[in-house]
């Protein structure tokens, strides 16, 4: 599709479950893509199929109000003439009873907005408004949820207020989400699948762990490069106030978390917090040490490199170290090293 001198050329298949993030700098066509999926803008010659339903092809265009989707705009865009309750009911009333899967009570509870129902939108804070907007989009029981940078218009505190809701949405409702964002951090917390856009073109697509650890993409070049690892809460150690998190390559030790045994968590291990040793260190304060295999080394500056390490079963770690260390340790692909992670961040 094309508008003026900007053209968007996207030919992708994305999974019909989980959260797919479309990531890219502003102006790369993320919103354009999302609006085309929603049918808010019509482009000739597009093809769009969602689940088993064709939403757009050569001579066929389903208008947005007939597409079973929910759309969350960057600004909450609540109807100013309706109170919160009637904003929420607006979409629900227009969905046949048979197709209602998300109840209003459910949506209200998920977003924690029960106390706001009789308020007018202009009396709400930015974060509250966005929560109402999310609940409103859910109230039409969408088969696909489209989110256009729902956090971008909010300050940091408001973001922290909304993120947990987005995460619980993801875990409690089985609705596929396409989430547009320019923030790798947000994406690291929420997404399962990733589409990278640059100037209207897809430069990479795949699962989030794979993409975040690909050394040829921009994420791994910067100082905040990090690996993302899925883990399960395995045990708590009350004596030392620690929690053990198991993943397919071993076990992480972190400070005690208020998490039920068996719950899934996502960990972020920054490349700059990972150091490498040739022998297993016993006389160290670091608890998280794993045997790994060097997979790939890439220069990211005159002095520094990023090393991708394999920890069995497709799990990767990244280490950002100096080029000098590489030659001292004699690192090359295939070499066995121990990775020591100084800190681990829990994302959810």
């Amino acid at each position, binding site marked *: 599709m094309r508008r003026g001198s900007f053209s968007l050329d996207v030919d992708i298949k994305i999974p019909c479950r989980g959260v797919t993030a479309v990531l890219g700098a502003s102006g790369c066509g993320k919103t354009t893509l999302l609006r085309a999926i*929603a049918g*808010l803008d019509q482009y000739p010659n597009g093809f769009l199929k969602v689940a088993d339903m064709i939403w757009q092809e050569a001579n066929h265009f389903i*208008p*947005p*109000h*007939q597409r079973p*989707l*929910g*759309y969350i*705009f960057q*600004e909450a*865009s609540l*109807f*100013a*003439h309706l109170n919160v309750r009637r904003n929420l009911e*607006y*979409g629900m009333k*227009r*969905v046949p009873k048979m197709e209602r899967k998300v109840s209003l009570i459910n949506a209200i509870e998920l977003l924690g907005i029960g106390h706001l129902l009789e308020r007018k*939108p*202009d009396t709400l804070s930015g974060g509250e408004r966005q929560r109402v907007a999310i609940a*409103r*989009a859910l109230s*039409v029981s969408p088969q696909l949820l489209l989110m256009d940078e729902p956090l971008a218009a909010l300050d940091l505190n408001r973001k922290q207020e909304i993120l947990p809701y987005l995460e619980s949405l993801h875990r409690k409702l089985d609705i596929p989400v396409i989430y547009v964002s320019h923030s790798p951090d947000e994406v690291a917390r929420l997404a399962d699948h990733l589409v990278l856009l640059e100037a209207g073109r897809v430069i990479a697509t795949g699962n989030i762990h794979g993409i975040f650890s690909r050394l040829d993409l921009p994420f791994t070049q910067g100082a905040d490069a990090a690996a993302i690892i899925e883990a399960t809460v395995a045990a708590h150690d009350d004596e030392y106030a620690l929690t053990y998190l198991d993943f397919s390559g071993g076990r992480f030790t972190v400070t005690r978390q208020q998490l039920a045994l068996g719950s899934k968590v996502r960990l972020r291990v920054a490349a700059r917090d990972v150091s490498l040793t040739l022998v297993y260190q016993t006389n160290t304060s670091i608890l998280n040490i794993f045997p790994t295999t060097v997979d790939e080394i890439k220069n990211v500056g005159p002095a520094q490199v990023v090393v991708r390490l394999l920890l069995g079963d497709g799990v990767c770690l990244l280490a950002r170290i100096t080029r000098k260390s590489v030659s001292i340790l004699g690192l090359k692909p295939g070499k066995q090293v121990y990775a020591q992670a100084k800190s681990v961040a829990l994302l959810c």
Partner: protein
Amino acid sequence: MFSEADLTALVITLKLAIITTLILLLLGTPLALWMARTRWRFKFLLEAVVALPLVLPPTVLGFYMLVALGPHGPVGGVMASLGGPPLAFTFTGLVIGSVIYSLPFVVQPLQNAFAAIGRRPLEVAATLRASPIDRFFTVTLPLARPGFFTAAVLGFAHTIGEFGVVLMIGGNIPGETQVVSIAIYDHVESLEYIHAHWLSGGLLLMSFLMLIAVYAFNRRFTVI
């Protein structure tokens, strides 16, 4: 106080203003909606045409309409050949003239109100399953309510106040086309200042009350 002829003029004036306002709201809404949304290149031409009555002397407008509506004019001629009633110097002619004369006073507030709403609320409504007609009645109309109120009151008040157009195409037929503004003129011409005072004072009071209503109402409905 009011003579019988004055009361008749008052009734005709109110009737004219009410009918004109209703017609203008019906015609003006789709026109304003289209003008607020279209990306048509030559929209400015239409905007200029709509705004013409704001700047033209009413007598000029009235003169052209008299020519057009007269039995030999393009509109009147067609009407006559179809066996329709004459338009010049009739109440119907007055209504047509008033609709054109007050058009910008209705279309411009509506157009501004629609433009102020923007596309976003309508897009939101579309993603919440509302069809275009549904969107108009449940989103556009309620959000533009202050604009409709302003348009109705301005259209009404402006029609009551017209003189030149009415005089040109309505003539001054008591009981048929004589409106208050012309009745006042007649009274002054005949040096009947008491009568002129009563009618003028009544009109002044009515206009003032309507404007107070507009401003009070629009303050309550400040758009967010």
